[in-house]
């Protein structure tokens, strides 16, 4: 689960659940946001460093390719840069960033549907595997991408946000602009497909890594 999810929960908690009110405003991220809003380029760069793993990871899970994830991440930070002035102090920056990332990925998926890409090259790990653990990790990751690619885009987005990012169904529904019941149906359908994928995998290969 991404560490972005607790931040989102914190954002909701400010309205009455867990964290004390105003916690977001005093966090290091909030301070960076404030400095970046005032035009401090170093603060904006630091903000990217602090959040890049979450943004690019989510984009990669949603889009399925490293190249697309990198392009999407660039677009996310460009939008953040352009609209940082509109971001209100005290608002949950992570939730805002999450929303932008999901929107950018959805735009990218729409573009991909309109202009299908040329056949992709085989998936390559971002760095050469150095140990057996790395190899296993890369293999697992590629299998997951394969499984996620078998899902319809809406189910994929719902599943990634709910099961891999750890958001609640209601938060996912808000992000995707759907009803919670619809999102729950999409998540259930996606889990069944993943289960079928795994069963087929076990049948075809030896076992799940």
């Amino acid at each position: 689960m991404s560490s972005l999810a607790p931040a989102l929960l914190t954002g909701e908690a400010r309205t009455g659940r867990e964290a004390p009110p105003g916690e977001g405003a005093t966090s290091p991220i909030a301070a960076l946001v404030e400095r970046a809003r005032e035009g401090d380029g170093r603060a904006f760069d630091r903000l990217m460093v602090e959040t890049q793993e979450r943004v690019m990871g989510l984009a990669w899970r949603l889009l399925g390719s490293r190249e697309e994830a990198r392009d999407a991440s660039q677009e996310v930070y460009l939008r953040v840069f352009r609209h940082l002035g509109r971001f209100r102090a005290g608002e949950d920056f992570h939730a805002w960033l999450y929303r932008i990332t999901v929107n950018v990925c959805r735009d990218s998926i729409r573009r991909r549907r309109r202009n299908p890409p040329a056949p992709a090259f085989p998936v390559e790990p971002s760095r050469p595997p150095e140990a057996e653990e790395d190899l296993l990790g890369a293999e697992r990751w590629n299998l997951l991408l394969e499984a996620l690619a078998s899902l319809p885009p809406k189910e994929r987005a719902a599943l990634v946000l709910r099961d891999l990012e750890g958001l609640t169904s209601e938060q996912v529904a808000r992000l995707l602009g759907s009803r919670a019941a619809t999102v729950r149906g999409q998540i259930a359908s996606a889990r069944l497909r993943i289960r079928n994928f795994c069963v087929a995998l076990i049948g075809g290969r030896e076992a799940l890594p």
Partner: protein
Amino acid sequence: MRCEEARKLLALESGGDLPGARDRALASHLEVCRRCRAFSEELALAVAWMRSAAEPVISEADYAAMRREVWRRIESGRGARSSSFGAGRLVLAAAGLLAAVLSLFLLARKSPQESPVASARPAVVEPPPAPPNPTVSSAGPAPSPAHAAEPVRVAVSRPPRSARRRPVAPAGDSAVERIEFRTANPNVRIIWLVRKGEEKSSSMPAGRTEEVS
């Protein structure tokens, strides 16, 4: 509960998305259905596998390249914005200039009729009331620019507006105004000689067409 319904609920239950009452009904079904219990285990395993494999391997070099590209695009965006702003200013200036030229042109075309000091500036000639060239409009005071005949400015002094408006020219004024039209054919010009002070309707001006070799 049927197995098909139980499996849909199991998919929700595996992520903790099932309300309590449905959860109890599902538990009752699982107690008696061995196949659904196996299905439930597979589902839990699949979700656990998916979660365990969810961390992508992204190197610091990838992140750095991404950040560099973001900064590059921000900088080029600033450049583009400023250059587009400059281009916008140029376009505005050109549009303003064009508007000024157009309004001057229109003003100049109207001035012989409306300006009270028409004699102080070169006059724009009026078209004849019934020009021989059928392409020249006889209805309006000026020929259509789309047509071949085009008035040429001639520097002749004209009487003041009040005098020109008189239906009859003042006695003894024998000055003649020369009106020259160019046609589509560069070799053909239409020249009208009109007595000053005469209204269009009061007399038909004498005209001739000459060919320029």
